[in-house]
């Protein structure tokens, strides 16, 4: 029979079987989103809230407004009616209320017990000082610029890497162990099916899920969580493809000889555990002892996470990611080759 049709039908069946497995769909598509949402929320940094300053009309109100405009963290609201402004202040919809006076010394009303009130007071006074030419004490400011500064920006590429690992390994490993246990594999072997088609169908089906996975998780990350993609989409896709390929190979390898689902799942846990911990999914692997780090960098998930973070957060081009990509490629090629050699057909 034509290779194409055989391959198409085998792949189609693999995809159908996966889509008919609700648990698998949950772990691949829903769980990482929930995890990203929960962790991203728990560890969010709040950023700088603007000071909400109310300004009543009166003599010199325009000058005051101009002075305050010099501070980008001041949100100015002007009022004509005092009663309305005082009500807002009382309800903490305003942090301070500035009222011009006939004698030219404006009055600043605020709640001294709220940190926001205190913050707004300092900002207003500083803005007025500057406007009157009184210089601030001479200090050289050196703000720290963090790249991909939020925790979720760090976390999300790691979760994506972990997901590519999990889907590849469980998805392929379990399916192989299952067809072997059912003797379905044996039944296929008494047909003229090419053995290479059997392998290839798993790889192709994996590629189909990869597109779905990247579409769902990627758009969630970009639009809902606001994780940046500073590199090119093509680089991102290629890194993901190499990662998925490496883990597909490792998945086939772990299932190459196992006769039962239990044996496969035990083996998978042994293989994945070091990577869950050491590959920098949830926290940077640089927190591990220095002596350990060269080893950690050789793990496929570490390489994948580094490459994904490089593309997303640092905007790295592929040439800058040669090292992690070479590691992924090596894992993929070696594990496929070995799996083919030791595969238990019976």
């Amino acid at each position, binding site marked *: 029979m034509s290779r194409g049709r055989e391959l198409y039908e085998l792949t189609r069946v693999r995809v159908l079987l996966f889509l008919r497995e609700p648990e698998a769909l949950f772990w691949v598509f829903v769980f990482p989103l929930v995890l990203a949402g929960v962790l991203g929320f728990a560890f969010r940094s709040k950023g700088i809230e603007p000071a909400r300053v109310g300004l009543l009309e009166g003599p010199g109100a325009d000058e005051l407004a101009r002075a305050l405009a010099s501070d980008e963290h001041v949100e100015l609201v002007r009022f004509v009616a005092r009663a309305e402004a005082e009500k807002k202040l009382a309800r903490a919809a305003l942090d301070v209320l500035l009222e011009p006076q006939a004698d030219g010394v404006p009055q600043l009303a605020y709640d001294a017990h709220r940190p926001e009130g205190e913050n707004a007071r300092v900002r207003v006074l500083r803005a007025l000082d500057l406007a009157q030419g009184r210089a601030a004490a001479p200090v050289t400011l050196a703000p720290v610029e963090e790249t991909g500064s939020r925790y979720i920006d760090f976390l999300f590429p790691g979760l994506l890497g972990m997901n590519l690992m999990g889907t590849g390994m469980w998805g392929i490993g379990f399916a192989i162990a299952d067809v072997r246990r059912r003797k*379905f594999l044996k039944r296929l072997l008494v047909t003229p099916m090419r053995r290479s088609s059997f392998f290839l169908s798993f790889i192709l089906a994996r590629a189909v899920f990869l597109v779905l996975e990247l579409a769902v998780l990627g758009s969630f990350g970009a639009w809902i969580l606001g994780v940046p993609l500073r590199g090119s989409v093509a680089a991102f896709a290629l890194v993901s493809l190499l990662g998925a390929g490496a883990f597909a190979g490792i998945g086939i390898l772990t299932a190459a000889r196992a006769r039962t689902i239990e044996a496969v799942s035990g083996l998978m846990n042994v293989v994945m555990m070091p990577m869950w911990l050491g590959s920098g999914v949830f926290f940077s692997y640089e927190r591990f002892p220095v002596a350990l780090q060269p080893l950690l960098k050789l793990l496929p998930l570490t390489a994948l996470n580094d490459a994904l973070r490089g593309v997303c957060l640092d905007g790295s081009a592929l040439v800058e990611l040669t090292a992690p990509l070479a590691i992924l490629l090596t894992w993929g090629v070696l594990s496929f080759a070995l799996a083919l050699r030791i595969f238990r057909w*019976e």
Partner: protein
Amino acid sequence: MTTGEVVLRARGLVKRFGAVVAVDGLELELVAGRCLGLLGPNGAGKTTTIEMLEGLKAPDAGEIHVLGLDWRTSAAQIRALIGVQLQATEFQDKLTVFETLRLFRAFYADSRGADEVIAWVGLEEKRGARVGTLSGGQKQRLALATALLNRPRILFLDEPSTGLDPQARRRVWETIEAFKASGGSVLLTTHYMEEAERLADDLAILDHGKVIARGSPRAVIDTLGAESVVEFTPVGGARPEHEAELLTLSGVSAVRHEGERVVLSVTRTQDAIAGLFALCARRKLELEDLRTHRPTLEDVFVSLTGKHLRDE
């Protein structure tokens, strides 16, 4: 294909699993258009034999020719020409009957339509049902349907009706008979003697990996040399001294014990029964549950091996 042509030949087949010799110098021939039944108890080596013939297991010694081809050189060609039902294959539960057949069709250049084999095994109503929802008998029929897809010249069936109720079993038998009628050859393993008697033109009875009797079912039964079998349970238990006396009765050719029961192979039924009653009267023996029946393959098997085909 000319009748009388040998489509499958095995010579001196041996298969060992560690210290266990599962198949021990087996010789087989399947003639075109006929059904050869391998009959034997659990562990006799039926599955090991048939899996070597299907190319799934390599024999440790011996030769196999399938339609004149050798597995070692022409595996892909042979696979296109045979249909196989394994002992206990589970198909994918979440595929439908039709989807399963659609997958298997893709492996053959010349294949029957899925609906054609569905009709053949009578699964029309289950065409769109998931495999996981089928009954045991329906699953066996699906397995048979996949084996028939490629218009096989030889059909290999490993216990095609084990675990089925009588009605489902009859359906399977009818499909196999229809395949044979269309000119196909069948190699079948079973431990149901009714199945062997109905489907098989030739039989090979296996025990410990060896053929211990072969021929047509009639010929195999005739090796017992008995017109009928008489069995009974003596009240108070069978006593060894009776055995010699029973053997002297006119018309009795063999005596054996099965637990409490005594089983006589009998060449002239009437004489033997008359003699048996006379003996009972002399020895004041009382008999329970006296029965006579025509000899079956089971009787042949038990007399050859001392074991039953099935563990009761």
